[in-house]
């Protein structure tokens, strides 16, 4: 889950991974149990939906059917594109800003002392609390959505990038110096590879936070994007359609997560346990 590695300032997030006891996991056919459990869950959903006939729990097949209908009507893809576009802009801005801030904090101690406590405080605070401010200042509009995406991931990434930039193995640096490595060479061969696993893990978790920010922001604004659709269908009490959009949201979150994991695995193979 990576958050264990992205362990900013004294385990602010606690343990989120599988830190130990991995050896115990190897002996059973894990994937089979997981797939079975997932299929069982879907089956239970389907059956409960059919048998109970509750308005808020339509069977899974009905939700998939609604999803196909919505896609055919062209509703889903247009809003998905809209959401992803906002996500890309908001996340890119946060990525750039957090990278620059973290770099300045790592290079200049005064910057670290002046804004470090605030970055940390806002990282600990739920970003949602800032939404009323955005709504007040930016109104019901695209800027609010972007601002929500930004704050959902900015503080987290800034804090972790800062940790990554400070993570310098002095023994390895000494080794590099003993081989008369230039400053550039030390950066290229020691500093960057050292920081890379944490940076990639941070980007992955940051992206997943940005997706949450995107959906939440859109739900507040309730006009466009997937979150807008959820609010619209929710207002119509159309549970099948709400679930259909949720399926898209989950798929988006999972696809981005898997993509980042693949990238991570490719670039930081040496760090794998």
């Amino acid at each position, binding site marked *: 889950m990576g958050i264990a590695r992205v362990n900013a300032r004294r385990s602010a997030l*606690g343990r989120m991974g599988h830190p130990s006891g991995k050896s115990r996991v190897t002996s059973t056919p894990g994937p089979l149990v997981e797939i079975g459990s997932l299929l069982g869950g879907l089956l239970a959903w389907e059956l409960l939906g059919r048998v109970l006939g509750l308005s808020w729990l339509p069977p899974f097949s009905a939700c998939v059917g609604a999803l196909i209908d919505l896609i055919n009507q062209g509703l889903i893809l247009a809003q998905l594109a809209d959401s992803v576009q906002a996500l890309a802009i908001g996340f890119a801005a946060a990525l750039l800003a957090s990278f620059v801030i973290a770099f300045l904090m790592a290079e200049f101690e005064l910057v670290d002392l002046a804004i470090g406590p605030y970055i940390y405080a806002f990282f600990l605070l739920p970003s*949602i609390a800032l939404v009323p401010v955005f*709504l007040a200042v930016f109104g019901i509009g695209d800027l609010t959505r972007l601002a929500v995406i930004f704050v959902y991931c900015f503080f987290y990434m800034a804090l972790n990038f800062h940790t990554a930039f400070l993570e310098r193995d002095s023994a390895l640096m000494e080794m590099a110096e003993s081989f008369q490595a230039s400053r550039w060479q030390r950066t290229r061969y020691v500093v960057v590879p050292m920081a890379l696993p944490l940076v990639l893990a941070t980007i992955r978790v940051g992206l997943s936070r940005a997706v949450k920010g995107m959906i939440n922001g859109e739900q507040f604004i309730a006009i466009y994007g997937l979150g807008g659709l959820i609010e619209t269908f929710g207002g119509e009490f159309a549970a099948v359609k709400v679930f259909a959009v949720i399926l898209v949201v989950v798929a988006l979150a999972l696809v981005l997560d898997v993509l980042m994991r693949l990238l991570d695995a490719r670039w930081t193979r040496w760090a794998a346990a």
Partner: protein
Amino acid sequence: MTQSGGALEQGTRRSALRSSSGLWRVAPPLAFLAIVAIIWQLGAADAHNILLPTFTATVSAFVDIVVGGAIWEPLLRSNLTMIIGFVISAVIAVPLGLVMGRHLFIDRAAAPYVSLLVVMPAAPLLPIIVMMIGFGLSAGVLLVMVFTVVYIVVNTRAGIRSVDPRLVEMAHSYGANELNLWRYVLIPGALPAIATGLRIGLGRAFAGMVLGELLLLSSGIGLLLLTYRAANASDHVFAVVVVLLVEATLISSGMRRLERRLQPPSV
């Protein structure tokens, strides 16, 4: 050797500056805050925008709602949602995490749902929750639970997993049964991680509470914010946010203190 030891030099410079005096810890953040406040004040005054209150207007609105008392009743209402949701979450999540940490099959079976709950946003479930139980207190409580449960589960599970298997074996060698094992080895070993999970969980519960307030607008802070926004009293909107930030900070530092108490004794 002109460019030697960048890291080392930086290291000494760092420690020199940091340890020089307590002033160095306090002055830069305060200076930064002052600069932000001045820019905010001048910028907002210059913008002539009723939506953007000045710094001083926000401060006086803050004093108004806190001393005038407009904030307390809604705040209490909202916090009730959070506390109920958090307590139910803990009651469900801690035992679940304990069982997952110990029993591989249950762990495996729950794994996909745990990952899903961590990765997916919880807010889209809100319309479904509303269809299920309406707009009342229980909707907020349920949303808080969706936010909270998984984080307590994951940390509790990790706590059990982090218990040294050699200690379990040792206890077995002295004839410990499953009950002894939980009492003397597993629970004490997992306690710090459970405390961490509860701290993070309470932070999540707060987030869930705020989200519920903003989207459900049923009562409490959400309704208060809506009222202020409708009246274009954005200085009061800002002040409510400041109250929320203060509360979150208090919760976070209080839980941290509690957590440190539960840490294992060290040298």
